[in-house]
């Protein structure tokens, strides 16, 4: 049943709910509107106002040429952290972030971490990295409480050799 819904949603070009943040103080859900190439961040109020549609005032407009890596059109989706689906993460100070992964049909993906601000309806880009991996992984470093994302990138910069490292997002 879920697959049918996802397939319908994908084919109709409407949004898929990616995540619901569980933090009580700033509870929000995010969804991707593929026809607009936007990620909407919706509070409970937005959700009821838009009746479940992927719309709202707080959104991140995807860059030209990039599209969000979401589920397959067959609706099967990916297991989190394995194929590049977006990931919610909460910092130690309670800030809620969305780690997103984008493709531009090249040999690397682009990892972008977003933070919505519902007061001014803006979305802040915390960091943006090229990632030569299909996986999305993020963690809060217990030592310093900072967000780190796992990246695979060529090193030296112009080479066929790659390294995989946790890189701070700031």
């Amino acid at each position, binding site marked *: 049943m879920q697959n049918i819904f996802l397939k*319908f949603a994908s084919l109709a070009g409407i949004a898929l709910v990616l995540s619901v943040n569980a933090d009580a103080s700033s509870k929000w859900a995010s969804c991707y509107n593929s026809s607009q190439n936007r990620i909407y961040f919706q509070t409970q109020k937005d959700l009821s106002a838009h009746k479940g549609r992927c719309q709202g005032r707080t959104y991140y407009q995807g860059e030209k040429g990039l599209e969000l890596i979401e589920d397959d059109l067959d609706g099967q989706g990916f297991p989190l952290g394995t194929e590049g689906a977006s990931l919610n993460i909460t910092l130690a100070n309670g800030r809620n972030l969305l780690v997103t992964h984008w493709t531009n049909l090249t040999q690397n993906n682009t990892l972008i971490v977003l933070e919505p601000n519902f007061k001014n309806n803006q979305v802040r880009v915390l960091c943006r990295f090229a990632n030569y991996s299909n996986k999305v992984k993020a963690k809060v470093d217990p030592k310093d409480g900072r967000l780190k994302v796992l990246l695979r990138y060529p090193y030296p910069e112009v080479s066929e050799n790659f390294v995989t490292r946790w890189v701070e997002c700031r």
Partner: protein
Amino acid sequence: MNLFKITYSWFSFTLIGLAFCWCGQGWAQEKSASVFIRFGDLHMNYREQNDMTNSTAVLGPGSVIQIPTSVAKFNEDGSINLNETIEYWLAFARHQQQNLGYSHFQAREWSCSAIESERQADGHCQGVKDGELFFPVRVVRSSSDNHDIRSESYGYLALDYLRTHVEPHRYETIHTTLENALSLPAVSNDNTQILGGDSSYGSETTSTKSAPAPISQPQNVINCNNTVYRTPRQGSQKNSCLRTMSVNQRANLVMKDVSHINQLRSGFNLDPRFSACIAYRESHMHPNAKGGTPDWGMYQVIDSTGRAALKRNNPVTPGFSQHRYNWVQYRDNMLRSTLAQADLHHSVLFEKARENNLIGPVNSLTTSVSVYQTLATRYNGGGPRARHYGSRIASCYRSMLSVAKRDGTIINSAALERALNKALN
């Protein structure tokens, strides 16, 4: 005059529609003459009526199908004109759909088959203009070897594929009675050429109206089940499916494949010499290579890119469009088919060229190294690594211009490997 034409066509379609209703949904009865297609040296996928799942059977040589009599168009010599028949069929079904709200004869694209509301009046899925259409037919005789298709069953067949991709000598159109059609002699199975790379044989490719010459050779099927991890600089020679082939032979294969896809996907005429450089740099032209990202195949396409390219362009390799919405299936089958890999590579570059306004320059057939350098750079993302990549590929491409012709024919074998090596490092 236009008004007359419109009125005339409306009446003619409507009258034909009524005729269909009167004679059993348009299928000719036993005694009257009807139109049949008898398969010669040919396999085609067949979908049972009302079965909107992926269950597919195969109609083999000797099968006889019937098409609605009243959509048939004839040449002056009385033979059946399949091109005009298909065009008229589509127009007729569209007219019925628009005026009656339904049509028993509507062709349908399979990818949206589960959601009827998504279908447009012309049978295509919403937002898709040139996906392959399946036409409703009646099987009057099945000679399927592996699948049990009932004779007298109704189902769907990609007839548009037949007219655009299959040589006319491999099938026969006949205007006769059902009785006579059933008594037609069977066709020998000897020397059957299988289209398609997977076990189901293929027929489901995008068939654009401007599709060029029929494809006579079978696609390149390697029958290689393993994927081989590639280490940088070493390629995948040891366990490659093509390890017994020389670099020249592999390059020839790559360029022929890309030329082939250029024919199948109109609108983007990629230079096969450029693709040879990319394939050499990425994998040394080994089709079952697997890189670390992971990236797959001869052109080392990563999952997200492959998935996104399939979303945007229907595969044109016979037998592969059924995997369009399932990347993993496409990928696994692709690793055994160099043609399908070339298809995906072509699709990705088509998109990159579109984004960067390079379709015109590429299609102009000018051999501008700078155009292909830009394309190679964009293909590899951004930053210094991509620029370096672009310059290496451009260097290789420049050398390839004097080594091979644009159609992929090698004219200087001795210099080929030296030219390809410029793509490295």
